[in-house]
């Protein structure tokens, strides 16, 4: 039996709450970036901080709570591109799931 028939015959409803949680879980992990001996999350706070500084080197607390000295421009580039790619994927999948009933 194909899954479309299965859903119809079971009269199953699409769970938007579970879908939302599933997508958050799935894409949250994709924001994780290991770079310059530290572990980072490509979030707006870190990206904005890196963007606002003009120093070549900055020291940041990574996900493991360790202070890590990093080349600012290189990390900014990596985190920005990760953020953009992941958000686009997340949005595309979310839009598709939103149409389900």
């Amino acid at each position: 039996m194909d899954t479309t028939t299965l859903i119809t015959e079971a009269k199953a409803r699409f769970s938007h709450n579970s879908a939302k949680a599933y997508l958050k879980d799935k894409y949250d992990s994709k924001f994780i970036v290991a770079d310059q001996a530290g572990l980072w999350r490509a979030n707006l706070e870190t990206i904005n901080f890196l963007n606002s500084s003009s120093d070549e080197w900055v020291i940041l607390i990574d996900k493991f709570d360790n202070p890590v000295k990093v080349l600012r421009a290189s990390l900014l580039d990596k985190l920005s591109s990760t953020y953009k790619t992941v958000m686009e994927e997340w949005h595309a999948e979310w839009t598709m799931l939103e149409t389900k009933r």
Partner: protein
Amino acid sequence: MSKGVLLFAFNSPKYNYYEMAVATAKRVNHFLGLPATIVTDSESLPIKQTYQFDNVIMATADKTNFRDWGMWINKGRYRAYELSPYDETILLDTDYMINSDKLLKTFELPTDFCCHDTTSFLMHPEATQEALSTYSFNTLWATVVMFRKTKRAKQIFECLEMVQNNFEHYATMHGFISATFRNDYALSLANRIVNGHTVCKEDAIPWNLLHVGKNTTVYRNTDSEINTEYTVLFDNWSRGKIRKEYLSIKDTDFHVMTKENFMELITYE
């Protein structure tokens, strides 16, 4: 530096773990581009082998562990360190369904040992984290473990052996039932002991282990051998009635707790 995946598979009277390992190994090759080594015994190894593992390591199955559905041969996982032929190893449960290259990220983590310390359940967004007991700390998960051949990683596996051999003692200390040996519990204890009875954040894989739990069944959307799209059906009990709910997932790794469901998913592979 050699990299690979290590799978322990000992058939029980009820489940064919070798078959599960073959399906998982094919996915390891496809999605991770890594070789897979199996640790098994002569009783589990079929006469005609349809899949060529990178290495087949023979070991003696410890048949002294039981759970509600019967014999569960999960002891001896501590041997992973000595048996792994790789410098960097992902030790994986055979019922872990790989659908992406996500596990490769564990090799990038600045640590020599890591496993999951948090979980989430498909269709159960509010599920809480499991603890050894009400009076003890949160569980680590032995489902996915990445380790490098270092002194510290070796110590963790040696400690895992010690905890396995003294499981009753640790069960009394931490207030959990010792009747069934669980690698998750033993690993939680071993990791803490080696880290000086503290939590080492670096030892945690920085994303959740996704479980398929009770009342939840996963169906393949296609019959292709390397299918990555699934429909998840959930029986939601409300006011004495079942309301069926579903979810579509794709390109997502998950751990199937119900062995029957996992076997259904790999039937055509």
